Structure formats: C-alpha cells, structure tokens
C-alpha cells in the first residue's frame, strides 16, 4: 500500500478501503475506491488533523 512518492495530480489513485462512520445511517461502514469507480461516482477526500477541532 505504501508508495515511495505521494500521489500527484493526474496520477491514477490505487484502490483503497477505509472504515467510516455514516451519520445519515447512524452506522459504521466502509469507503471503497473500487466501489466508487464501479458505480461511476466522483470522490472528494477532505483530510483534517483531528475531531473536536475546527475545519
């Protein structure tokens, strides 16, 4: 999974999965990039340092 060089604009993003909390469903879930691609969906990743801080 680790890449020697971080991704740059125009690179193809390797498939990855990540655990999630889904507020609309009050449930835990998973985000999967390959699933997004299969469903023809765009993805926006919005990183921030920590919960309980401002965004």
């Amino acid at each position, binding site marked *: *999974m680790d890449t020697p060089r971080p991704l740059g604009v125009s690179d193809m993003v390797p498939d990855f999965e990540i655990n999630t909390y889904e*507020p609309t469903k009050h449930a835990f879930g998973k985000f999967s990039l390959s699933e997004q691609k299969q469903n023809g969906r765009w993805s926006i990743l*919005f990183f*921030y340092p920590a*919960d309980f801080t401002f965004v």
Partner: protein
Amino acid sequence: MTISNDTEFVHLAWQRDEKELADVGFAMGADPTGRIGRLFGVYDEGSGLNLRGTFIISPEGQLLNSEVNFYNMGRNIDELMRRFKANLYLARKPDEGCPSKWKDDGDATLRPGPEMVGRVHEALTEGQTA
C-alpha cells in the same frame, strides 16, 4: 468523505456531540495509522496527524485536484464546489478550459487554439462559451 486520524468511534461521538455537525450527510473516514494520508502526502510523521488536504478523484480513479493547507487554515467550501463543478463540466467537454472566474454551467469557458494566443482578454470579456 472527510478523513482524520481518529477512529470511526470518535467520529460517532464527535458528530453526536457537536451541534454544528448535526446535518452531516457525508461519510467520516478513519485513518488512525496515517496509511491513506501517506498515500496522498498529507501525513505529518512528526505530529502523527493529517494536514488539511483536499483531493478530487474522477470516476475513472484519476486524481484531478489537490490542495493542502497547514493546520491553522480552514478551507473555502465555495471554492471546493467551484472546482468540483468545473470537473463535472470538463468531463463532458474535455476540449474546453474553465478559467479562474468560472463558477457554473453557462459561464464563459476557453477553447485553446491558435486564435486564442494573445487574445485571452477578448475571449473572456466577449463571454465566449465554446
């Protein structure tokens, strides 16, 4: 999807506790090891936290936009949505370009070509929609 180095359990507690987050409609991703942050170059090994990075990925899996801010600067959601809409537009019209003032469908775009060389000002002020 938002991503921090907290677990999904902390996301639940934060979302339940903070009234500003009452209407959150997106998934809150957990990256406690920094695995995904490293992939995108936003993981700070010193603090063990992800910087404020925003990335837009096309349905084909291509990274089209990237923006990274230091910890103490928030992001402008209007600008993020402008870029997202521009991506949707350009996916439909790949031979056009969205200039910096482009906001939404119908705004002037540029079509790069010989007649555009040295005439960007005219193209923008005449509101050319290619």
